[in-house]
């Protein structure tokens, strides 16, 4: 299964992947994606707000969809909320499969979904100025790759 959770605390990527592979010998490929806060244009922090009831419901739905689309052997999604400093990790997607193609595809699929459909909102802090991050058309285009007629898969 793919476990999904939202938390304020930092996560341990090595522990997450060890939990997927520990004691197993059927997994051939593990792909991880970790998103970090970039200090673009003097950014001092990123404030992340989310909608807990919807996040939980939608994360479970998208995890189930990924599970159905690819032959996966395990996965983990962790998304942080609250105030994060430059360099800190925001989000982790870790996917285990027998072979690399499915693991890469599912990890990209889940990241594209998190960027465009998961109910999180980022606010950039630069000293005492705050600015809501706008959604990006490039993220919508990336997510559209996975829907029928939405471009190449």
């Amino acid at each position: 299964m793919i476990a999904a959770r939202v938390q304020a605390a930092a996560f341990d990527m090595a522990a997450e992947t060890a939990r997927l592979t520990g004691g197993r010998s059927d997994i051939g490929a593990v792909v991880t994606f970790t998103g970090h806060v970039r200090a673009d244009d003097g950014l001092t922090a990123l404030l992340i707000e989310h909608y807990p009831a919807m996040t939980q419901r939608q994360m479970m739905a998208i995890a189930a969809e990924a599970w159905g689309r690819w032959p996966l052997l395990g996965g983990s999604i962790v998304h942080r909320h609250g105030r994060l400093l430059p360099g800190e990790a925001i989000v982790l997607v870790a996917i285990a499969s027998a072979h690399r193609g499915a693991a890469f595809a599912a990890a990209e699929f889940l990241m594209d979904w998190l960027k465009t459909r998961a109910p999180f909102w980022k606010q950039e802090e630069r000293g005492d100025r705050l600015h809501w991050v706008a959604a990006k058309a490039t993220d919508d285009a990336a997510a559209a790759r996975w829907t029928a007629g939405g471009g190449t898969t």
Partner: protein
Amino acid sequence: MTIEFVYFAWVRERIGIGGETLDVPAGLATVTDLLDWLATRSPGHAAALADRGAIRVAVDQDFVMPDAPLGTPAEIAIFPPVTGG
């Protein structure tokens, strides 16, 4: 009909509250009709809902299109396009 409204990001800031429980009048057919009614409640509501292309709506934790039938939801969330990940 009583509905729980929840607001996020700059929609929350413009309305000035994170959520509210409201009695919604009968006869609102679609999500757009509901937003039209909600916009009349205060200048903050009006400001938050002025640009309909800039907001997204979830009914009972599922995204809906503006022309979706309203039905009998328990919770309606209004927020800008998401920016997670």
